[in-house]
């Protein structure tokens, strides 16, 4: 295992310590447990709170989107594993300004169960909570079983528009509905070229041949659609684009936001080579591109690979997506 760290045991806590030392005006600990992080100005009066949470190892997801225009708090788990219900509840309590809290997180059973428990704790304290699950990965289950799909990079778009809706005074139900409406229009798919290593495990999560890739792999190394020979950038981009479009079924003239996301080790040059092909296919189909995000938005530590996300916009969603935001990892003007 070749990582810059002090010890696997201290990995997450030291990462958080560094993050809060680097961004003291933006982030703060919710209380004594370093795994509970909130906006430095939490609770934001008059605003619905937005919380997320999940395992570490995905920066900027999840914590990196806590800040103005996006999230209010985040419960941070160990690498690739859910934070506890207590931690989620601690965040909930600290960001609730009396308007309630919306949970937006990925559809992984550990996270789902813990957020369910946290919501029960919040309920006992009379904090109203709404839960919106991110299930954007089209490769993780066929359309008929879309409820089983896992959440990947598309969650960033949900954070963005729900955050903007909350900023504009949306009620608890309105913010949750906006997040759900966004997610109904968000689809993603990934490809992995190399594994990554969980510090505590010390060895790669899976192995993959020198000339192989896995289309559809998830951000913890969950198996994808197919393990096969490495293809060209155009072929990979085309397959992901077509798979998403087939699932989403947009009409000519529809407006999309596009995200090409690096999983960790893939150079940005390669992401742009992929975007080029995506752009050309969308143009051919008369789909217009409203905004483009290329970079690292949801990673799997040092995994090589990329994911593609489309977000179909109507006027409301486009307007919310365009709103400014400012967090440690995401600044939009």
């Amino acid at each position, binding site marked *: 295992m070749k990582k810059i760290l002090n010890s696997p045991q201290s990995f997450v806590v030291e990462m958080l310590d560094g993050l809060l030392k680097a961004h003291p005006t933006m982030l703060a600990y919710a209380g004594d447990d370093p795994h509970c992080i909130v906006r430095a100005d939490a609770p934001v009066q008059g605003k619905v709170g937005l919380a997320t949470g999940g395992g570490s190892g995905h920066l900027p997801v999840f914590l990196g989107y806590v800040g103005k225009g996006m999230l209010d708090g985040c419960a941070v788990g160990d690498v690739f594993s*859910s934070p506890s219900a207590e*931690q989620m509840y601690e965040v909930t309590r600290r960001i609730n300004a009396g308007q309630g809290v919306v949970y937006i997180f990925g559809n992984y059973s550990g996270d789902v169960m813990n957020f369910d*428990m946290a919501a029960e704790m919040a309920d006992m304290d009379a904090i109203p909570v709404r839960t919106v699950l991110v299930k954007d990965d089209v490769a993780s289950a066929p359309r008929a079983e879309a409820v089983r799909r896992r959440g990947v990079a598309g969650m960033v778009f949900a954070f963005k528009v729900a955050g903007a809706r909350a900023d504009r005074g949306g009620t608890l139900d309105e913010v949750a509905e906006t997040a759900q409406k966004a997610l109904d229009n968000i689809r993603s798919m990934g490809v992995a070229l190399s594994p990554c290593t969980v510090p505590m*495990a010390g060895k790669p999560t899976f192995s993959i041949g020198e000339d192989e890739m896995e289309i559809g792999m998830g951000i*913890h190394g969950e198996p994808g659609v197919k393990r096969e020979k490495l293809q060209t950038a155009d072929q990979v981009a085309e397959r992901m684009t077509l798979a998403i479009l087939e699932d989403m079924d947009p009409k000519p003239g529809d407006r999309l936001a596009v995200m090409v996301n690096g999983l960790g080790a893939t150079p940005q040059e390669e992401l742009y080579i992929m975007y080029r092909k995506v752009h050309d296919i969308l143009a051919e189909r008369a789909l217009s591109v409203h905004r483009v995000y290329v970079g690292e938005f949801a990673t799997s530590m040092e995994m090589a690979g990329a994911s593609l996300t489309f977000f179909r916009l109507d006027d409301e969603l486009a307007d919310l997506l365009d709103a400014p935001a400012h967090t440690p990892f995401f600044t939009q003007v």
Partner: protein
Amino acid sequence: MSQSEHNIDEQTVAHAMKQVSAAFNAQHEYLTGLDQAMGDGDLGITVTKIATALEQYAQTDPAGDLGKWIAGAGMVVNRAASSTMGTLLATALMRAGKEARGLTELTPAVLSAMLVAADVGIQERGKAKPGDKTVVDALHPAAQAFAEAIAAGIGLKEAGQKMLAAAREGRDRVTPLKSSTGRAGWVGERTVGLVDPGCAAMVILLEALVGIT
């Protein structure tokens, strides 16, 4: 045999916790391997964390309320390990604890109720049903077999063996099936023939418990 010989006291419960810790520590690599085959690989870490947490918790004082104490172990487990398995085990401990509120000894009937409550709790929390190839497929038949045996007046030791046999059988019955829940659900066809890691962990846990009765 006097009635109290069949009962489980505070010390024995604490000892049971330590036995489970030791078993998890001994088997974590095996569980990691099973979980990796399912496209994940954190289960070994999870049980190690649970082991450390329980070992430490076992040093604390039940203070006359085994039920509260066991439920407290659930909180500790959830804090220490909040992956699926950790959360389910935490839920199981909390529900089991509820059945023993205010007690200083656990009778066979209470033990049986605790196991059933754990089973129900895990099913409610995880929303998996028997046959989905999850930990439920080991725990549910085990809880049923134990409850039946105790209800039939069978001794604790023998009831424990019946429970264990049912757990192992449950684990093996779903091995040929396709996983449909949790992370393994995404691996689909490739899980056919693979032992469910959660079932394996549950059998290890129950073996450790029975070992001390």
